């Protein structure tokens, strides 16, 4: 099953037979005090730096939420600004419904919306907007709580896909987030995640993404852990991740796994990337 998202000039396909889709997570004020202060002042100049540092991403997530700022207006401005800086498609990220709507209404192309949960009220509020704009949507595998059994997460995922269908959104436009959680706080977090990925792949066949950086929260060697996590998750059916696209180690682990799993035939992309690095090293 292929999920297509687009900007004005670029088309990205997420799918089980495609190279892994890297969604850059950087444009997000969580944990970034100076960016928060800028957003509160209506200043979006940081976006240019954030975009330029995420050249390895296939898609960029855009989250400008701050409770002391006018998120709706910021989203309305941030989307065209980011689209003027890069031609990669965007993932419009907010839990404020009006901000999602504002972002979608100014976006050129077919966006990915981040996100809806399995709660009835969220599904009823967000899915009509996604449908009206012909967008794709990330569906979180949680409702009022976060289930700790893979089967229960699968049930939530099924519900999201089914309700999306009621609003005319086809399964290929629903990307399920099986919920990556910190392994430092729960030793079973990743095995449970992998089991959920396999269940969703086998039973629903839809594409999946996750917040990959959650896994390494509170631990040393986060990039290495992230790289290993993504390689394992990818080999069990994860087709995308919202992740640190600025870090070479993590990005290269994803591209190496693409090659190893047969999603980069003859290693063309892997080798081209090597040449690009060589050229860059020579130029500097």
């Amino acid at each position, binding site marked *: 099953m292929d999920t297509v998202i687009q900007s004005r000039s670029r088309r990205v396909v997420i799918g089980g037979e495609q190279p892994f889709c890297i969604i850059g997570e950087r444009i997000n004020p*969580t*944990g970034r*005090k100076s960016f928060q202060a800028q957003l509160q002042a209506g200043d979006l100049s940081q976006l240019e730096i954030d975009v330029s540092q995420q050249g390895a991403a296939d898609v960029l997530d855009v989250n400008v939420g701050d409770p002391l700022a006018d998120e709706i207006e910021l989203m309305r401005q941030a989307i065209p600004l980011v689209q003027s800086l890069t031609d990669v498609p965007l993932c419009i990220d907010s839990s*404020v419904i009006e901000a999602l709507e504002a972002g979608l209404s100014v976006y050129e192309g077919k966006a990915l919306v981040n996100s809806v949960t399995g709660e009835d009220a969220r599904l009823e509020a967000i899915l009509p907007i996604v449908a009206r704009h012909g967008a794709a949507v990330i569906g979180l595998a*949680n409702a009022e709580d*976060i289930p700790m059994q893979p089967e229960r997460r699968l049930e939530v995922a099924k519900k999201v896909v089914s309700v999306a269908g009621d609003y005319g959104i086809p399964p290929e436009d629903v990307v399920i987030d099986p919920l990556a959680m910190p392994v*430092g*706080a*729960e030793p079973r977090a990743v095995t449970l995640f992998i089991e959920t990925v396999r269940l969703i792949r086998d039973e629903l066949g839809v594409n999946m993404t996750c917040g990959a950086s959650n896994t390494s929260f509170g*631990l040393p060697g986060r990039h290495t852990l992230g790289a290993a996590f993504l390689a394992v998750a990818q080999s069990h059916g994860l087709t995308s991740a919202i992740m640190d696209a600025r870090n070479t180690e993590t990005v290269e682990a994803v591209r190496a796994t693409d090659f190893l799993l047969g999603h980069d035939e003859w290693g063309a992309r892997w080798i081209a990337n090597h040449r690009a690095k060589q050229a860059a090293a020579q130029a500097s």
Partner: protein
Amino acid sequence: MTHDEILQGLYDNTLVGNAPEVKDLVNAGLEDGMDPEKMLYDALIPSLEEVGARFERGDYFVPEMLIAARAMQGALDILRPLLAETGAQQVGTFVMGTVKGDVHDIGKNLVNIMLEGAGFQVWDLGVNVAPETFVEKIKEHKPEIVGFSAFLTTTMPMFKANINALEKAGIRDQVIVMVGGAPVTQEYADAVGADGYAADASTAVRMAKDLIQKKRAAVPA
């Protein structure tokens, strides 16, 4: 084993999160007539405070803090009933929950564990807790502090909604309000009228103790 060796053993084994050994040492100490309060205040609490300090410095990581706190909890399970008998003063009481619309609980759970480890009694209301539930549980348990946790910039406004609910119920003055969570800042905590904010679990414990001390000093019991 001498009593000093037992105290040192409790300190060292709590520090590395060796729960079975901590439990054995507590039982050995009790059998030998040691004072539960002494084990708590001279070994267990200092050890967990050291864990918190190491975490704040970046020398300790989340799993190390969790297993240390778990070792401490195992000891407290044995000691708590005995401490109650001797009438040792409660460090403090806490009602805690993640705000409505938010299901993130790892940060909150860490704070709970550190609070319990420090000798607080904690009632955890879980995640997605509605303002009226906070009001109801505060009336029921009469805690000294209530903690609101939020992990999303978009659920942080529930802090204000919760505080408004406390005011409406006429119980705002009876309870200290602490807020926390990854996107929360001191500035935001001030803006919603919270009494305290801490950036991490061990700072939260220290702040909770300070706030309670101030309140107890201001209002003679």
